[in-house]
């Protein structure tokens, strides 16, 4: 069995009281079962593990022999005769926090004794009901799953013929009209020029059209003029700001961590601008996705490209993380999980994260699929060191961008070393290794002999002055073989370490001391000669280099068997191999060597050095990019998703439902992300294209062809226009993944240009507008509300924003306000857990989650905000003052704010309102402008 579990010392003691023979079956064993065992099982276990109760928690049944033989998620529950390997006994011992049965109350010693004796007897069990009848085992049928509509290869459906062949303007319209005609409907009328230009301007740039643009288009409407306007809008920098924001929703962009500690992501803004630039320069979608996944690993022709790609890969690091998680392996796997979940939903519309603990209940994604994919991302390093010098507060990887000052990369390396030394030193303190020798630099984790477990009598001594800690111990050359010293190590992170033993050398010492090192790769015996002077600082002698896993096997045993002199033990050191070069420099005693000084710093000094470095990095050209981890490789499946319950190792692979070929060939020591990215974006993966074209459609029609834009799985919606979806996806791929071309094609379709006003028959036959026989109205987004109010008053800056989160300090927890800033909202900080009020109120994306479709909620605080926010009133008042320069202020405000001419009756109503408030003067006009700004007509696009 592959499960690694601690030994159960308790059993040795309890066992001695049993008088049981070898494996007993037959009547005697059955009688024991009936008298003793069955009552225990039925009283304490059947509630959750029997067919009668209808429960088989953890997949385990205990009401029949075959139930425990086959076992549940963790394999067989009982190994007859084997007390140590039987999971059932392990779980009832309650020694494992993650596996305590029965869960509410530990069994008494009598019951535990009965079950132990039963297992020892060979678990005689007369209950022979068949298992398969009770089990509801479901397995994934990949063959059938691969026939699903969403995972099909690309296909190019023919453009349908229509009855009203004069209506369509392009291919899209043929598909739309075909569905409308099938529903025995006709498309509604085209939108008015005012409506169309306002809608298009917001959809393409996130801003209203200017009064001049409206006037000119109203004067000469028509497809040609429209196409010209569309081209101008698509070519403007505002296009990337609008569509980049859509994408930032999908990739859960934020400028702070959220999670448990809301540390500022000082370099996230570079990723935000990369996204905006990508949409503006129409970077092929497939290239963009490839850069998101593996930008840090891709070859680059020049520094600019290298820089772009590094920044793009920040995508993997931007998620919320529980940086104070004490179990680092859990932190790594949770981080990988967040990445996989985001990748699944964002690119493929699949909830892959659901398969972490068990096979996906609805979609063809097995737990094995999940861990095959997790291998790529557990092999990717995002988490690193510490933010503040505390071993329990992790930080993340940042890389120097190429082309910057050469010393920057060295500075980054120095900061990483400081982090590690700070963590080591914090560990060292906890481990009790409090003493050290003056002038001797120490890295790594150190243990004094007082931290070790001593077997047999060891004699303390202070005879030799040059020593580690207050004293050392020796075996007095007596009882050889009966004495040993065991150091059980615990290391802050997994990696290759050199192990060193401290002793004082002398001619009386033993020359042949066996030392057993237990590391990830098992036990290894090394022989040590203590007559030789230790080579590191005359105190520590290397025993060898070993790979240790955080939380994994890590012990060093000094044996005395057969030794030919005194055996001395003074201390033990684990030092990361990567730190040894700088340690060597430090030991050489020259002060002008980089990093050498760090080894002599106290914990406090290290912390302040770290703070200094991190502060200086805020303005440096760094990218929040990940890199391949040192311990890249395939990983263990985790039973029920529990980090501490490893199952079999799962080779890295792509999702089986989308990939029917052989496993990828991944070079040794590499994460395999390049291979993963190539597969994900390869032409064979039509799902990637379907999901993206549907996202674009959603933003232009208010609803996707597949309504559930982030879920193309079984519980997602079916496409209302499957042919159209395939048609668009095929063209998107064939035209090189050009987002601009696709948007242009959609906007120039007649379908896009329809009015949003339904007729009675539309409301009756198609109330939900499943046919797209009309446009859907949509509310302005939070960004559009803020940006357009600033735009209308002439305050909006169209400059490109940079590191706007920089000034907020090390975390984004303090109240934030945008009221003094006039940049477009997309450039302002997105603080997780601390969104600016007006962003949160009007349904900005929650940056913790992939958000392909923002909800449109109605909460009273929105109304309170619109009514009472002073900034908004101030802007309205400014508009009112501007209106005073025109001949008819109310008419001017109508066309300025709502992009249309007011009707005569509207003007009449407005004037009587103004009269009530004191006539046409700035105060009352301000109130009037305010009402137009918070009116439904302003907030909801037609």
């Amino acid at each position: 069995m592959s499960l690694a579990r601690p030994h159960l010392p308790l059993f040795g003691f309890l066992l001695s009281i049993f008088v049981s023979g070898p494996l007993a079956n037959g009547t005697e064993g059955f009688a024991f079962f009936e008298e003793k065992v069955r009552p225990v099982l039925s009283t304490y276990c059947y509630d959750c593990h029997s067919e009668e109760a209808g429960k088989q928690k953890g997949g385990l049944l205990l009401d029949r022999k075959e139930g425990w033989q086959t076992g549940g998620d963790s394999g067989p529950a009982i190994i007859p005769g084997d007390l140590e390997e039987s999971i059932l006994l392990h779980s009832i011992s309650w020694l494992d926090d993650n596996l305590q049965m029965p869960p509410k109350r530990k069994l008494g010693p009598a019951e535990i004794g009965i079950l132990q004796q039963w297992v020892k007897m060979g678990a005689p069990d007369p209950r022979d009901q068949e298992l398969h009848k009770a089990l509801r085992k479901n397995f994934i049928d990949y063959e059938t799953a691969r026939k699903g509509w969403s995972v099909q290869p690309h296909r190019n459906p023919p453009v349908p013929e229509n009855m009203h062949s004069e209506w369509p303007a392009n291919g899209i319209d043929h598909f739309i009209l075909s569905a409308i005609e099938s529903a025995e409907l006709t498309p509604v009328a085209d939108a008015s020029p005012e409506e169309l230009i306002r809608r298009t301007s917001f959809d393409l740039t996130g801003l209203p059209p200017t009064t001049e643009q409206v006037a000119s288009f109203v004067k000469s409407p028509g497809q040609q003029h429209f196409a010209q306007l569309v081209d101008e809008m698509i070519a403007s920098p505002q296009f990337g700001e609008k569509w980049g924001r859509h994408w930032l929703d999908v990739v859960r962009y934020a400028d702070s961590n959220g999670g448990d500690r809301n540390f500022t992501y000082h370099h996230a803004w570079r990723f935000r601008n990369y996204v905006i630039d990508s949409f503006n320069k129409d970077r092929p979608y497939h290239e963009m996705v490839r850069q998101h996944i593996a930008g840090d690993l891709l070859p680059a022709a020049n520094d600019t490209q290298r820089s772009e790609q590094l920044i793009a890969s920040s995508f993997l690091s931007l998620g919320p993380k529980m940086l104070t998680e004490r179990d680092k392996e859990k932190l790594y796997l949770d981080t990988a999980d967040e990445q996989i979940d985001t990748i699944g939903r964002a690119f493929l519309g699949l909830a892959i994260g659901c398969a972490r603990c068990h096979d996906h209940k609805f979609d063809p994604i097995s737990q094995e699929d999940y861990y095959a994919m997790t291998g790529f991302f557990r092999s990717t390093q995002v988490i690193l060191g510490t933010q503040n010098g505390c071993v329990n507060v992790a930080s993340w990887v940042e890389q120097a961008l190429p082309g910057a000052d050469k010393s920057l990369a060295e500075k980054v390396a120095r900061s990483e070393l400081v982090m590690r030394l700070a963590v080591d030193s914090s560990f060292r303190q906890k481990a009790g290794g409090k003493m050290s020798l003056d002038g001797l630099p120490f890295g790594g984790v150190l243990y004094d002999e007082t931290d070790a477990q001593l077997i047999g009598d060891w004699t303390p001594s202070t005879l030799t002055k040059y020593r580690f800690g207050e004293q050392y111990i020796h075996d007095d050359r007596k009882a050889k073989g009966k004495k040993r010293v065991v150091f059980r190590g615990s290391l802050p992170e997994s990696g290759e370490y050199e192990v060193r033993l401290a002793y004082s050398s002398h001619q009386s010492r033993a020359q042949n001391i066996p030392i057993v090192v237990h590391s990830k790769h098992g036990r290894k015996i090394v022989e040590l000669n203590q007559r030789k002077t230790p080579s590191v600082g005359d105190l520590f002698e290397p025993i060898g280099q070993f790979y240790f896993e955080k939380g994994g096997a890590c012990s060093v045993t000094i044996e005395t068997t057969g030794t030919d002199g005194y055996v001395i033990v003074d201390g033990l050191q684990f030092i990361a191999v990567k730190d040894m070069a700088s340690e060597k420099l430090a030991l050489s005693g020259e002060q002008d060597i980089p990093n050498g000084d760090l080894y002599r710093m106290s914990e406090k000094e290290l912390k302040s050095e770290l703070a200094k470095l991190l502060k200086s990095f805020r303005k440096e050209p760094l990218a929040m990019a990940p890199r391949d981890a040192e311990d890249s490789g395939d990983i263990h499946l985790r039973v029920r998703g529990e980090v501490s319950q490893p199952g079999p190792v799962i080779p890295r692979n792509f999702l089986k439902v989308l990939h029917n070929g052989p496993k990828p060939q991944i070079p040794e020591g590499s994460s395999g992300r390049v291979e993963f990215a190539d597969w994900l974006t390869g032409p064979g993966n039509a799902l990637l294209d379907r999901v993206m074209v549907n996202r674009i459609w959603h933003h232009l029609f208010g609803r996707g062809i597949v309504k559930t834009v982030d879920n193309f799985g079984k519980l997602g919606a079916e496409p209302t226009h499957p042919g159209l979806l395939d048609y668009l996806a095929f063209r998107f791929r064939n035209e090189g993944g050009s987002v601009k071309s696709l948007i242009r094609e959609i906007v120039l379709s007649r379908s896009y240009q329809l009015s949003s006003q339904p007729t009675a028959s539309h409301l009756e036959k198609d109330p939900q507008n499943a046919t797209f026989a009309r446009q859907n109205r949509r509310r302005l987004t939070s960004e559009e509300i803020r940006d357009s109010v600033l735009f209308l008053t002439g305050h909006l800056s169209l400059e490109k924003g940079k590191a706007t989160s920089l000034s907020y300090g090390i975390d984004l927890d303090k109240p934030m306000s945008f009221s003094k800033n006039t940049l477009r909202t997309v450039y302002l900080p997105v603080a997780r857990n601390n969104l600016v009020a007006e962003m949160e109120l009007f349904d900005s994306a929650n940056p913790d989650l992939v958000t392909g479709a923002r909800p449109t909620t109605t909460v009273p605080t929105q109304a309170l905000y619109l009514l009472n926010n002073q900034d908004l009133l101030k802007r309205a008042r400014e508009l009112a003052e501007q209106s005073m320069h025109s001949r008819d202020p109310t008419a001017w405000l109508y066309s300025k704010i709502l992009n249309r001419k007011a009707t005569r009756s509207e003007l009449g109503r407005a004037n009587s309102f103004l009269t009530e408030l004191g006539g046409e003067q700035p105060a009352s006009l301000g109130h009037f402008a305010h009402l137009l700004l918070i009116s439904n007509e302003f907030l909801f696009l037609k």
Partner: protein
Amino acid sequence: MSPFQSCQRYDTPAVSRRTLLQGAACGFGSLALSGLASDSAHHAPRAKRVIFLFMHGGVSHVDTFDYKPELNLRDGQTLPFDPAKNLDPTSTRQAKLMASPWKFSQHGQSGQWVSELFPEVAKMADELCVVKSVKSKGQSHGQAVCMLHTGSDNFVRPSVGAWVNYGLGEENKNLPGFISIGPSATHGGPRNYGSAFLPAENQATTIGRSGAVKKDASFRFLKPATDQKTQQRKLAFLEEINQSHISKGDPSAMEGMIRSMELAFRMQGAAPEVIGLEDEPEYIQSLYGLDQKETENFGRQCLLARRFAEAGVRYIQVNTANVWDQHSGLVKGHEKNSKAVDKPIAGLLFDLKQRGLLEDTLVVWGGEFGRTPIVQGTNGRDHHPQGFTVWMAGGGVKGGLSYGETDEFGYHVVKDKVHMHDLHATILHLMGLNHEKLTYRYAGRDFRLTDVYGDVVTDLFA
């Protein structure tokens, strides 16, 4: 209509004004039609509302309600038990036990043990249903606080209050259904009172910031920007232009916005009455400790909580700042903190009882974890999710009950373990909600507060 479909989008089917008005009548914010109707409880509720008193930072159980004489006897000794497996062995290698610096005594007819840190709460001992066997997940604050509030230590999930609000809708049409008083911005911040993927109106409306709920604390943007008369006139005109603009087939959010404006106006009128404490008689103010500097802040929060409870708010959370985290200076820290909350909490219990509100108001008290019986440094205790105490009162629980046990040192749970999921299942049950049925479909999965876990602890029921 399933809750998922009703999540308000502009593509949802046309909703008539009449439906909307009906929606509005059953609660403020239920305009968005996303909560289940209020008669949608799964079974008869024992409690109508919850007041959760959150002791942020982790109050020590072995120094307050979980009396451990054996721990006191073995002060300074090494551990006679195995520490939790998930802990770094180096940090527990030299661990030693530390006695509680405070005396315990029995109180009330039930003989409930309470330490001298809570003399006032001790007077209400017979109301308390003390669960001494709570086990949670998350060794650090971030994880444990999220676990307590959302049932997940690492993922973004809706908070307990949001689930209750979603399941039951609001009782009072002029106030939100879920209010958090003085919530902390750290350790997940809004995530702990957020709605995650549930419709946004289920998240808490907050009042005041952590540790400083001032006299004039109010809801955001509640203060009218203009005089009432002007605002009334403006609203009338706004309604006029909005009504002239709306037509059949428009998204329901447009109708929603019209109603929302009216409700906002009403809320401006109603809410200040509820949040203004000046009209409380002096003896009530002093019952909550508003007249003493140490207790004034938390007292105000507790009094606000009572007023929200009276006004029909479903789920009210009262928060201390992150003050209970005594890795060192246990005596000074816990004495100061318990002094600040003891009288206000006792006052709240007493006041709810004298008004007959306690019987259908569930009061829950606890931190994200307890603290170790092991000394940290010379005079502190570390985080301890392995076994700690949460007490409840009122709302259908058995007063005077002591339930579950930790071992004789207060470390491991040994009897009647109540996992955080079980506690959540129990709170929902008391509110009339079945934790296995209260689900929400998001991204292809039906989510529950209790994930796939949780058993209702019926032994706690009166």
